[in-house]
């Protein structure tokens, strides 16, 4: 993929979105929503909103009707969480999953959005995470020809990564051993991901699609314990103290 001249870069990115959790009966809930909206005019306008229908006894027609009613109130639903795939058709917003809750929302202030929504496994700096970001720990050496792929989060290798082996992570990569093969961190669009290794002898390292081959690396960094990260579009490699 990386050897092609102009690859299309697919990235995941997480955004904050407001989440609405409707309650049944919907008529009563909509009255309360109208009441809230009347107190802060234009509150939902242009705001991305996710509808959380988890736990609701609802069929497809009811869901479509609810979305229509919300649209009439200028609440634009960008995605639906907690619905079974059978419930969602092409005429409804796409399914969302793995959202993380942030601090509760204060309607009158109307300043910040409430809910963080990660579409593709990135790990934003949000306080009070209910769940730790997933990580993968490999306690054996990664042999030539083997490939460790973990797009959900960080990868930790307790051992070395051989020449001709590769580690691909959605998050950061930590190698407690020598990195002789390839390490690709932040492949799902996480530019904040880093690569750490005890000894750098890598064939290639990459973060979020930016890469450095062995030839591009500073000879002074080779054989050292280093970390690599992205500073804007610049690849930085620095020896660990």
């Amino acid at each position, binding site marked *: 993929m990386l050897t092609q001249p102009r690859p299309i870069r697919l990235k995941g990115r997480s955004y904050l979105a407001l989440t609405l959790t409707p309650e049944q009966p919907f008529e009563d809930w909509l009255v309360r929503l109208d009441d809230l909206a009347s107190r802060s005019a234009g509150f939902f306008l242009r705001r991305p909103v996710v509808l959380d229908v988890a736990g609701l006894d609802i069929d497809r027609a009811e869901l479509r009707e609810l979305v229509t009613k919300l649209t009439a109130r200028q609440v634009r639903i960008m995605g639906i969480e907690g619905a079974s795939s059978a419930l969602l058709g092409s005429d409804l917003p796409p399914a969302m999953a793995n959202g993380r809750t942030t601090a509760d929302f204060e309607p009158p202030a109307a300043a910040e959005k409430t809910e963080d929504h990660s579409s593709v496994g990135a790990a934003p700096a949000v306080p009070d995470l209910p769940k730790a970001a997933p990580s993968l720990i490999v306690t054996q050496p990664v042999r*030539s*020809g083997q490939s460790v792929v973990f797009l959900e989060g960080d990868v930790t290798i307790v051992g*070395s990564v051989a*020449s001709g082996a590769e580690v691909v992570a959605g998050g950061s990569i930590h190698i407690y051993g020598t990195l002789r093969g390839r390490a690709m961190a932040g492949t799902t669009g996480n530019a904040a991901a880093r690569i750490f290794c005890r000894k750098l002898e890598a064939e290639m390292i990459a973060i979020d699609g930016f890469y450095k081959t062995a030839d591009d690396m500073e000879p002074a960094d080779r054989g050292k314990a280093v970390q690599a990260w992205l500073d804007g579009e610049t690849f930085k490699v620095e020896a660990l103290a």
Partner: protein
Amino acid sequence: MGKVIVVTSGKGGVGKTTSSAALGAALAQGGEKVVVVDFDVGLRNLDLVMGAERRVVYDLVNVIQGEAKLTQALIRDKRVETLYLLPASQTRDKDNLTEKGVEAVIGALKANFDWVICDSPAGIERGATLAMRHADIAVVVTNPEVSSVRDSDRIIGLLDSKTLKAETGERIEKHLLLTRYDPARALRGDMLKVDDVLEILSIPLLGIIPESMDVLRASNIGSPVTLADQTSAPAIAYFDAVRRLRGEQIPVTVPGEKRSFLGKFFGRKAA
């Protein structure tokens, strides 16, 4: 039940066949029943190295395809009576090896021999994966140079994933046999150091076989080096390797160096 050893490397020309013959002959001289199986169908050499090329009638493929009985294909060594050879076919190709057939042959050999040594072909394809499939122990033959080390690393990965032991959740026992080690070139820094190879492959060291004319001479007269010249440096190294295979703890010496590497290498055995 006997133990099945696969002698493998990934890369060609590193000394798999020489080592299979030498280890087999060394084990058999201890009185145990040993069979060395040539898996290199189409490019057989083990019969030459063991001096049995004139006595080959049936081979592994014949047995697998039911054209001959196992006892008809086995060739007993003329010098050591507990040493046997199961030759490969030179005229067929590796597609004639079936998984079921290999399983049946290895099973029958295990029941009748103390050690079954499978001489793997080079590469990582069918022949090599079938040779390692039923192994209990793998001897990874490596030369102290980068391409050989990388190929060995690849093979170790396959040993940990493609063998029956690996698939049933057990771990296959793996040993490194460093061959063609040249003390003069090591001194000049032309070869990878023993330490570096061990660090990269991180499996225990079974022995270091020095590069020697004795090995070539033994191969040419059709005799494993552990039979042809038992006092030569490579023969002694193979005999020591066999003692380690049997579980003895004896220090590994690096050819050309006086001091024992016991502490140094046995300290890393767990790696």
